[in-house]
């Protein structure tokens, strides 16, 4: 058992650190963000430029083989890079879906031609990708997909026409391509009859509308498809293989999700509680506040420790499994609980938004509200618990009334 790097890891870390120091500004304050003051287009351009630089240095896809644009590195090196990058001010989020899930899916299931065409430009930041699985009626029930893909022409032409609606598509408004799940056979049961496609987001018939969230942000989109023409060469995997491909993609996503749920909100709580005064004394002297801080630490650092155990499994060449569901469950709740505690610290004055109360309140206030979203995105608490109960503890699945029924016969809702 060793929390420290091996010699090889330490040397890679130094290498990365040196490269980052030469190419980006270090993060100083906890509230520092890349691109303050940049407009959307400028931020996007900066993100693409940064991605190109990473790709040139081999850091765009560390575990990928060099001939695919990677570094032929280990998953541990990938983690080390991410840890080090977090200490610098670089654009984030733009390529998260591209590199985290969409491209690995193309790499896994794509034809040689598809890989040739799409992987390199995306790694270099020339193209941005999104992923379109969820639909209004397909939230927790992922298979309830109603977007239809039909062959163009009765004789089964070489193109598909896609019609339907996707929701919660991150980055759809600036993405160039997306992977999209559609129903190609309505006579098969729910999770069969689904096929995955690569869609040009600029194609005619694609309309992207932002979703305004409870936080007033609009990170996500609805994507409406009206007879969007997709050549059969842009089919990803075989017909009816869509469900299997999606599950693989989501498994990819799960581990990368895990890393988002750590953090040091407890340090923010400590700083705020030292500053806030209750009855003339710092709130940090209150044992209930101390209990809340300790609880936040136990959950946030605990989540990091579970992720670290997952990394150890990766180091050994194993792949971390459904136990990452516990990370999501605990981590998202800790955001909501810890954020709410921070807001509470201020009493009535804690109800003043950070813009008028002080920037040190911004992150906790955001977490208080967005924590509610974090508990839903990527699978609700209930879905995580189902995953743990069924896949880890071996308990029976829910009684399903929709399993062996042709999709066209299922009750709609």
């Amino acid at each position, binding site marked *: 058992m060793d929390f420290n790097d091996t010699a090889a890891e330490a040397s890679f870390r130094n290498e990365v650190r040196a490269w980052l120091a030469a190419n980006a500004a270090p993060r100083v304050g906890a509230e520092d963000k890349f691109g303050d003051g940049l407009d959307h287009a400028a931020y996007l351009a900066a993100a693409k430029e940064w991605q190109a630089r990473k790709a040139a240095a081999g850091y765009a896809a560390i575990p990928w083989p060099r001939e695919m644009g990677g570094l032929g590195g280990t998953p541990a090196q990938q983690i080390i890079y991410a840890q080090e990058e977090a200490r610098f001010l670089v654009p984030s989020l733009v390529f998260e879906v591209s590199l985290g899930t969409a491209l690995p899916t193309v790499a896994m299931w794509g034809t040689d031609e598809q890989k040739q065409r799409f992987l390199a430009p995306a790694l270099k930041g020339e193209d941005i990708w999104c992923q379109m699985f969820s639909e*209004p009626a397909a939230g927790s029930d992922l298979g*309830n997909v109603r977007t239809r893909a039909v062959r163009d022409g009765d004789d089964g032409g070489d193109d598909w026409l896609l019609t339907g609606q996707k929701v919660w598509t991150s980055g759809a408004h600036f993405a160039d391509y997306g992977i999209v799940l559609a129903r190609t056979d309505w006579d098969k049961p729910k999770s069969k009859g689904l096929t995955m496609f690569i869609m040009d987001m600029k194609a005619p018939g694609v309309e992207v509308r932002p979703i305004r969230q409870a936080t007033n942000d609009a990170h996500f989109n609805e994507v409406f498809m009206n007879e969007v023409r997709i050549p059969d060469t842009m089919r990803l995997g075989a017909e009816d293989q869509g469900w299997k491909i999606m599950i693989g993609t989501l498994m990819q996503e799960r581990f990368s999700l895990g890393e988002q749920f750590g953090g040091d909100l407890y340090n923010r709580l400590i700083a705020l509680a030292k500053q806030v005064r*209750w009855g003339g004394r710092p709130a940090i002297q*209150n044992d209930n506040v101390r209990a809340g801080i300790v609880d936040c630490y136990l959950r946030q650092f605990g989540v990091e420790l579970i992720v670290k155990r997952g990394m150890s499994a990766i180091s050994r060449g194993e792949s971390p499994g459904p136990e990452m569901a516990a990370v999501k469950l605990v981590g998202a709740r800790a955001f909501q609980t810890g954020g709410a505690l921070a807001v509470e610290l201020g*009493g009535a*004055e804690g109800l003043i*938004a950070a813009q008028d109360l002080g920037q040190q309140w911004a992150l906790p206030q955001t977490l*208080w509200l967005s924590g509610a979203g974090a508990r*839903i995105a990527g699978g609700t*608490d209930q879905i995580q618990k189902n995953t743990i109960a069924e896949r880890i503890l071996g308990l029976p699945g829910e009684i399903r009334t929709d399993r062996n029924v042709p999709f066209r016969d299922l009750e709609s809702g």
Partner: protein
Amino acid sequence: MNFDFDEDQRRLQEEVRRMLTTHSTSAAVRRVLEGAATHDDGTWQQLAKLGALGVALPERHGGAGMGLLELCLIAEEAGRALAAVPLLSSIYMSAEALRLAADDAQQGEWLPRLASGQAIGTAMIAQDDQHALPGAPAKLDGTHLTAIFNAVPDGMVADVLVALAGDALVLVELAGKGVTRSAQTSLDPTRPLARIACDTAPVAVLAASGGAAIAERVTDGAAVLLAFEQVGGAERALYAARDFARERIAFGRPIGGFQAVKHQLAEMYTAVELARGHAYYGAWALATGAPELPRAAAAARLAATEAYTLCAEEGLHLHGGIGFTSDMDCHLHLRRARWLAQIIGNRFWWQERLARELIGEDA
């Protein structure tokens, strides 16, 4: 023993509820949310018209001369309707402070205007003393007040402010000399906040001494009334989630048939019932002037805060992704639940107040 409201009271509640269903719509609340108004004046005027604002005020000063039990039920409906109106600031706090502290002339000057909705009051008399911002404690120099107040509810729209300075209760006309104010963005924009600075501002003295005790009594009353708002809001969020769960289909059946959803809703119901019990007890103590008021008020506030927080958070969660969109009202509950939980002191302050009462310690 009859631990429930009577039929006349229930009829009044029904009437208020019907009116609010018509007027305090999601669209009306969202006008305030989006910053297009300081409050929902349409609903406010309707409440005035029904006599709801003055229900607990004496008839000779424009009130209905009924009582605080009736006001509790009106609060419950306002909470249920997410009404964006200054009930706390103008009625529970300032009108009550005036009723209990002011002389007849002062009451005659202000209560009719507050009861009719022509004027709006606010108050800074809660004792929580929790500060995230540097302020300046209220200092009274004869009839002039110097103070900086933060997070004053409805502070931008209010005409008068009741403040506690030492042991004196005073009334400041906010359009008057020496007063400057600026909006402070609220985490629940439907319940706005302001910073009010008084620089030797002229005041009317409501009570030169004994003000702290009255302030305490008014704050306890506000805690009970807010508890009713919280119970109303919590119940609304609970039943919205229940209705959604009955309609939303996943895996071929309504999600309300999944035990995890059912049991979450059952926990929410249970929290609301517990809160309702304490709220009723608080109402009784408030209306009868029982010595149990401090403990009953604190318990009502704590149980109601727990219930509304739970129902708002878990109600949103049960809606899934759509619950986190701006279009749905779930986040209005999340914001309102937080606002109500903290506006006259957060749960830690009220918990300590209740602990002292139970243990039998002095503050």
